[in-house]
């Protein structure tokens, strides 16, 4: 188990390093001079040169890359070009939106998707099953930003129950802060809930035909009891995999949803930073997200190995 964890951990570190190199290189190749962007088209060349020097943009690429990596080890993410503030501080300020948003969306997608999947599997072939699966198909197809706009039209413009966007800080009014996250998290969760419902249904249908369900029924359980006691738990394995993967999709979805609901989250920070060529801010934010995603996968792997002994032993051979 320890050896398994260690191997996985080394893999994680290598992935991070590769991600850092790719992010750095990709952004460095991008055309565009941050100093010219900040000062605009009427600035004199010497003013632009002065700013380039202030921002440290004139150093060679390798030097900047290792300076950045080295800084991150001691928690120094650098200074934002456009905002002049420590990147770590800017990112930290956005987590109060993005983390709750992602968590609520995750809970919502599981809370909506799983019961629908189970219900559809239990009523396989019925009208309810067909209807629910059509809905799920729609849910997968609808883009989350468009669904978000529909939610705003109904709940903010027409009914006026919830704010159409923006964010009240948690410290100022926690209820209002939560209220500002309701519509965005629903918009973010819907496509994921639809995917979960389909996976859950398929997994459960597979399980229902398996030998151990037949054995359980032979021991005198009803089909419902057999499915609940043995089926759902086994069907959860593929669902857990999907849940782990979904985290990455949710994080990517925040970039769009935070823009539609003008929330001050990490996704919008990255979006704005890319537009303004605030390269150091983009790089560090992307690395934080990469870390969060592969960290989640690392934990999922560990949980898997712990639940399923076959995985461990195969690795140990």
């Amino acid at each position, binding site marked *: 188990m320890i050896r398994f964890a260690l191997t996985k951990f080394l893999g994680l570190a290598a992935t991070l390093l590769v991600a850092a190199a790719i992010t750095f290189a990709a952004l460095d190749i991008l055309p565009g001079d941050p100093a010219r962007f900040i000062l*605009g088209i009427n600035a004199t060349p010497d003013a632009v040169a002065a700013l380039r020097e202030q921002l440290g943009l004139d150093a060679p690429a390798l030097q900047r890359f290792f300076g950045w990596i080295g800084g991150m080890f001691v928690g120094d993410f650098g200074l934002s070009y456009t905002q*002049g503030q420590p990147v770590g501080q800017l990112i930290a300020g956005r987590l109060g939106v993005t983390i709750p948003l992602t968590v609520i969306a995750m809970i919502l997608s599981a809370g909506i998707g799983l019961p629908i999947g189970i219900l559809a599997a239990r009523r396989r072939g019925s009208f309810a099953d067909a209807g629910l699966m059509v809905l799920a198909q729609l849910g997968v197809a609808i883009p989350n930003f468009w669904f978000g706009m529909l939610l705003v039209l109904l709940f903010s*413009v027409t009914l006026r129950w919830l704010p*159409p966007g923006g964010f009240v800080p948690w410290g100022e009014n926690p209820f209002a802060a939560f209220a500002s996250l309701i519509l965005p998290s629903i918009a973010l969760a819907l496509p994921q809930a639809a995917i979960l419902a389909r996976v859950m249904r398929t997994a459960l249908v597979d399980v229902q035909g398996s030998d151990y369900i037949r054995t359980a029924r032979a021991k005198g359980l009803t089909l419902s009891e057999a499915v609940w006691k043995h089926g759902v738990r086994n069907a959860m394995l593929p669902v857990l995999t999907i849940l782990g993967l979904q985290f990455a999709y949710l994080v990517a979805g925040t970039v769009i949803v935070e823009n539609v609901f003008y929330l001050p989250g990490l996704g919008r920070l990255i979006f704005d930073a890319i537009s303004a060529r605030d390269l150091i801010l983009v790089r560090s934010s992307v690395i934080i997200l990469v870390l969060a995603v592969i960290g989640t996968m690392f934990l999922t792997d560990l949980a898997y190995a712990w639940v399923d002994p076959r995985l461990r032993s195969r690795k140990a051979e």
Partner: protein
Amino acid sequence: MALRTAVAAFALALSFVGIADAAPRTDLRIGLVLEPPALDPTAGAAAAIDEVVYQNVFEGLTRIDETGAVQPALASSWDVSADGLSYTFHLVEGATFHDGTTFDADDVVFTYGRITAADSVNAQKALYAGIDSVTAVNANTVEIKLKGPDGLFLFNVGRGDAVIVAPESAANNANTPIGTGPFKFVNWQKGADLTLEQYAGYWGTKPALTKVTYVFINDAAARVNALLAGSIDGINNTDASTLPVFKADPRFKVVVGSTEGETLLVQNNAKAPFSDLKVRQAIAHSLDRAEIIAGASSGYGTPIGSHFPPHSKDYVDLTGTYPYDLDAARKLLAEADYPDGFSATLKLPPVPYATVGGQIVASQLAKVGIKLTQVNLDWNQWLTDVFTNKDYDLTIISHVEPFDIGIYADPNYYFGYNDPDFQAIMKQLNETTDEAARKELLIAAQKRLAEQAVNGYLFELAQTGVWSAKLEGMWQNAPVEGVVLSGIHWTE
């Protein structure tokens, strides 16, 4: 869990929105398309900086009013020497910065020293390059000496780039701006909103508003929803295509005005075939401005025939110089040895007037055989490729700086236009302070650009604002970048 969340959401929602307004409000929530990257108007070109702080948080010696005229601000009056080389500014007394420090002549000397310094990162440094010296005569008098006469000096002094900052606080103005204006900076929730409050110690007339919040919404549909839902009270300038929604709604008023933005089909004059006057004239004859305005700007915008705003007192209408005439265009192309036209690229920045306008221009020029390949760029690529490296044939862009006709006198500018006759007119203009003589020169300059068909002159960008019907005092026109709050008030 899902059900509980939904119930909680409903209960919260009811408590959140149930605020009704009775007495005249003194607070205001304004939507802004772009969030300012920082808040120091003397160290960045972003229009969003001025939209928040210009004349609200920071003030200059002079200020620009709604008509584009120069008015006294931190200087209550000034004297100009007969040779136009020396300006003596008499400063207002009793003005203080928001941190309590006193405003005096030393702050003015410091501010201008910072703008003209060798390591200055002022976005408009070139405008102040003609300053020879800035001296504090006494605590309330400053003398600025120029190297040569400058007819636009008082206007430039009133721009956001030359607002007065204090040596004690200037270094932190990017995130905590400290000025002398009627509103003081309170809080900036980055990525969401920014709050200003009335400054109790303001030296001048107190504004009607006590608290102003800027909400940053870069998604067009989200802006419409925010207005409809009442979560913001107005937007200074929003997409013209969304205006019909608000025109039909009595809760709103649509404020349409003019800006300083000349929208151009820029031609690389240094590069063949655009270096040929006949080709440029042919393009001018092929442009149907009415169609471009209808498509690229939803019908908002005034046709222009040269590089000058129609609301200016020195404007002359030159839209008839090369009227829409495809036969004339074909004839000119044939004379220029392009009887079948030619191919070129049209590089477009990411703004709707350019991306949509580009398609219309391409289809119009195709009628005379000029085949355009459209290339969409983001802002940084545009700045690098087109503006800095001059690697382009044609582009569409709005030049939003006030009084920027002088850019045509710079042969190194990305237009690639090197015309000694025009440069002579500009030189003479800079040395002339007499109003009537200046007007004559400005008209000559406009005519020269129109006749030379330096660029395709399309239209003056409109400012299309949407505000609550109960608000008064917003600027209709935008002679400078900014959203000036001092006159805005609620009628009920």
